[in-house]
């Protein structure tokens, strides 16, 4: 969450208008992404070649990890393993299809959480923009909320959820997971939206005041459009953290069906089948990227508002 520091940093100057990014820049970013993956693969294999199988030792202390095939399987072993059946049982699906359906489950839960968190974050930011007092009172709590360890929260949420019966609606396990994901997603969105809402320069705010525009009108026609360059990165970051939150929540609430559970399950067979947990870990990381990318699609129709994207 390196973006957090910049997201939280107080605004010094108004964003300088720049032209929307060109299409070729998108292509370059994809290329850079692919290169980064290749470099990572090369490094992985290099470590395996250079560092002895037993790892590096300084006297008694181990300073480098073991690099034998059990601890660090070859990249191609992992790829191979993904395409093989999950277990030796007859009719077992491949690891790939098991992971895909697990990722699909987690992605939906994470996006549900992201949606709730984003709406909550936007409302909270609007509230804080409306009343300075609310901002002064709430910001410390918003920041503090993120220091509560997720692991501690999970059983609580499941406990509360179990007691909720809203008519027909039966509280489901996945809802607890989504709620925890939303708890992580709401933070960057709140901070980003607040900064965005406060971003219009005095000349613009006073123009609306001079027109006797109401608060909600000013919100709709000035603050909301002005916040887009702040909101999009915040929403992207929120999507990535929602996925992390969903995975951790799955593990700590013992929710089945998602990639979090799969990682744990595969890890238990690590000694005999070391490539499997690695495959699941990679899948989880990719899932975060996919979620962030899905959210960036939101920005496609908003070109004219992205005159000065804050990244």
């Amino acid at each position: 969450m390196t973006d957090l520091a910049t997201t939280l940093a107080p605004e010094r100057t108004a964003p300088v208008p720049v032209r929307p990014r060109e299409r070729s820049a998108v292509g370059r970013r994809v290329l850079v992404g692919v290169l980064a993956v290749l470099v990572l693969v090369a490094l992985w294999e290099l470590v395996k070649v250079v560092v002895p199988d037993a790892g590096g030792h300084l006297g008694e202390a181990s300073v480098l990890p073991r690099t034998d095939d059990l601890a660090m399987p070859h990249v191609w072993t992992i790829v191979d393993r993904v395409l093989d059946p999950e277990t030796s049982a007859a009719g077992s699906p491949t690891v790939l299809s098991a992971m895909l359906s697990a990722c699909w489950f987690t992605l939906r839960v994470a996006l549900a959480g992201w949606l709730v968190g984003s709406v909550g974050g936007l409302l909270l930011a609007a509230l804080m923009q409306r009343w300075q007092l609310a901002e002064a009172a709430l910001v410390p709590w918003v920041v503090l909320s993120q220091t509560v360890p997720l692991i501690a929260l999970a059983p609580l949420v499941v406990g509360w959820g179990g007691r909720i019966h809203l008519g027909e609606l039966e509280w489901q396990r996945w809802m607890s997971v989504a709620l925890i994901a939303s708890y992580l997603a709401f933070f960057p969105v709140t901070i980003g939206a607040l900064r965005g809402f406060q971003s219009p320069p005095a000349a613009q705010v006073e123009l609306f005041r001079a027109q006797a525009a109401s608060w909600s009108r000013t919100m709709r026609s000035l603050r909301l459009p002005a916040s887009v360059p702040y909101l999009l990165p915040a929403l992207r970051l929120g999507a990535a953290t929602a996925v992390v939150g969903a995975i951790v929540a799955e593990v700590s609430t013992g929710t089945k069906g998602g990639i979090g559970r799969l990682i744990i399950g595969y890890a238990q067979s690590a000694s005999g089948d070391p490539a499997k947990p690695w495959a699941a870990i990679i899948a989880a990381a990719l899932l975060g990227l996919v979620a962030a990318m899905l959210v960036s699609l939101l920005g496609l129709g908003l070109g004219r508002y992205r005159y000065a994207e804050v990244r």
Partner: protein
Amino acid sequence: MNAVEARGVGKVFASRSGDVHALEGIDLTVAAGEFVSLIGPSGCGKSTLLRLIADLDTPTSGELTVFGKTPQQAREAQDYGIAFQQAGLLPWRTVTANVELPLELHGIGKAERATRAAELLSLVGLDEFAGHFPHQLSGGMQQRVAIARSLAERPSLLLMDEPFGALDEMTRERMQTELVRICAESGAAVVFVTHSIPEAVFLSQRVVVMSPRPGRISAVIPVNLGDERGEDLREDASFFAAVTAVREALHGTPVTARGVDLR
């Protein structure tokens, strides 16, 4: 009814390093349809006075009315249009949409907005740029969009703070002539802040000269160069005489009269 009436208006900004007396004892009346310029050294409170009239700030003493109402009531009734030093355009709106903003905020229909915006854009000479975004315009062009926007609702009072500051001399003189024409046509009163003596003289019926620390009115120079103010007026002896008068008031000492030769 007078457009603006100020009686003993003062404004003190409280700050940690002590109070700043931005304005003190301002008495000023601007009649309906009258064009009044404010001129004075930097920091003498010209913008502050304008902001008080626009109800963007409140006076700390004295009494201020706009069309017989409090500034707040006047603002809520949309009695004035503003064009300030910073154009304050919305970067995500096209030039047309920026000009339409005040109309849109007050629920004017689409068709009427479009006609009015087209009208105003040709007035400020920007019809070709109607579909452009602000960042595609020069500073002077942005300023012209802001002026067009201030005129959108045909306000009976225009508050302008160095609106022509960013314009080149030629455009500036053209805009001045246009402004005189617009005001004559619409009968709008104008309070106009400027640093240019010739500009103040060309535009105004009265030039209000201010002095700093605390901001006060040090002189009011009636100009009255007539309603027909064409380009040739800028070469006229009466114009130079008025420029001299304002300059003397501004400097506080009589400049040696050199009559019409003074440029």
